[in-house]
């Protein structure tokens, strides 16, 4: 998206939410869903419209793991690294995922996808997968990349 388009999209989203109680989190979700991340240039606008300080907005964006301040690759893999997945070899899967990560593949840790009886689990562009070993990982990532 071009910078002006992004700026305009964010303005529209801010206007839609600014009267709502506790608007900041829902607004940040909207922006990230639309743009893919929360551009640092939008912090001033959000702060002004919600009557908050820039520090407060920046504080909230950086507090929550879900919010990103930078764009991500087209394919995003979240590997669960919590205990139930560790018990089934998620650290091995994590090491493998990190080794194949590149500019087209962002690899992130996630602490629990709620698939603990079918671990190790991961999310690939928001689609969840269970009992993932390195072979299944490669197969799924390759299929997503060729579809992209």
């Amino acid at each position, binding site marked *: 998206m071009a910078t002006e388009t992004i700026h305009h999209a964010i303005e529209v989203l801010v206007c839609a939410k600014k009267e709502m109680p506790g608007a900041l989190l829902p607004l940040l979700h909207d922006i990230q869903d639309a743009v893919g991340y929360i551009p640092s240039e939008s912090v001033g606008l959000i702060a002004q419209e919600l009557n908050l300080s820039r520090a407060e907005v920046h504080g909230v964006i950086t507090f929550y793991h879900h919010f990103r301040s930078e764009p991500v690759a087209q394919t995003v893999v979240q590997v669960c690294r919590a205990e139930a997945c560790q018990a089934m070899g998620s650290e091995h899967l994590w090491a493998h995922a990190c080794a194949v990560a590149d500019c087209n593949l962002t690899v992130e840790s996630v602490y629990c*996808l709620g698939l603990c009886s079918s671990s190790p689990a991961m999310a690939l562009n928001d689609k969840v997968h269970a009992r993932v070993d390195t072979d299944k990982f490669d197969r799924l990532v390759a299929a997503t990349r060729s579809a992209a």
Partner: protein
Amino acid sequence: MSITMYVPRDSAALAFGADEVAAAIALEAKLRGLTVKLVRNGSRGMFWLEPLVEVMTDAGRMAYGPVTPEEVTSLFDAQFQAGSEHSLRQGLTEEIAYLRKQDRLTFVRMGVTDPLSLADYESHEGFAGLRRALGLSAPEIVQQVLDSGLRGRGGAAFPAGIKWKTVAAAQASQKYVVCNADEGDSGTYSDRMTMEGDPFVLIEGMTIAAIATGATQGYVYIRSEYPHAIATMREAIDLATAAGFLGKRILGSEHSFHLEVCKAAGAYVCGEETAMLESIEGKRGVVRAKPPIPALKGLFGQPTVINNVITFASVPIILARGGAFYKNYGVGRSHGTLPIQLTGNVKYGGLIEKAFGITLRQLMYDYGGGSASGRPIKAVQVGGPLGSYVPEANWDVPLDYEAYAAVGATVGHGGIVVHDDTADLSKLARYAMEFCAIESCGKCTPCRIGSTRGVEVIDRLTSGTNQPQQVKLLRDLCDTMLHGSLCALGGMTPNPVLSALTYYPQDFGLALPLAKAA
């Protein structure tokens, strides 16, 4: 003749390709000129069988699983649409021992009904509790919950009725009901299953709480890691509102209750109730000091009922069948049932709703069939990342809040994570401290700094540097975290660390006598 088939829509089934199986069934049926009604139900909770396809027959629902899209043709060839034999056939679902031996009360409809069908919900005792509550006074509703002995299922096990009574007695122009669905504990998913597989039961429970306390606005705070739960809850709220079960003048009564989903953003500490309130208010999820308690000064400073998903979801059956009915289940002061989640390195992992009193050994071997790897089970963590590792000596202790507390363990949210003998408990202890450091909200020093120091001490301990001193230091640090932290994150991180150190000293490179001396 129309055939009814069930393919679950639970995330755990989707993660094994349930959508692809449903599409393959629809296509194959079309090719064969068969009329198949596909119901996307919740999961029965037997995850090694997912996707578990059920076919309605004269004898009942016949189960086939785990089904892959590739096997759909052979299933039709074998006439599975009539319930015929096939290598994937598991028998009648209700007769499967894993399910038959359970006490399904809160999960009575799980996997049985279409989660988004109000008609299905009502024909399976749905809204019976709400209808009964509408005929009672607020104190009478609270009394039913008190009589049931229901305690908070999120982990703290505080009596739900007492909390409701406090909010009911508070004077305020606006009160709130908030459902904590920030189920961040590893090894737990019963909240997710409820929201995806039986969302109306949560709506009904929250509505009853609102009527009992005089609240008119509610929020369900759901983790961003649960997109399917968020979507299903939003749809269910819209359906319930359109049908008059939510909104203004519920079912023609004088009670109004508006419900919204609030999407979290990936902060574990927001499962702590006051951090969650800050988050709903649009702020950083920083823990508040108590008092004041949220029942008196909660969301936006107003009296607020906060309960976990399973607590609210247990309320409708209590109202429908009476507090005494529910209280008859369980042992000691742990009344009712607990949806237990058997996870990690276990052969048959799944959701087991049982009355309190079952033991870990029964769960891991009678239900779980031992480890998935076939190796001996070494350690079990009960109650999430802040729960203790329970050694084999305590595997016969009945699952009961007080009995667990007596052996230094916690029941928590009912999550059980099994580890085989390849697990290194020093690494798991280090991970517990590291996780606390990543997730600390930063407000109190024992949690914010203590967790980082904890990682360092464990590193020195496992590298063999002056071990007796490190053990003393680690125990001392844990003591500070336990007594000096504002909330359970810092206060309970010592549980996994100390239980690992005490029961598995060899993993830290310690000889057994040294650890005992320490």
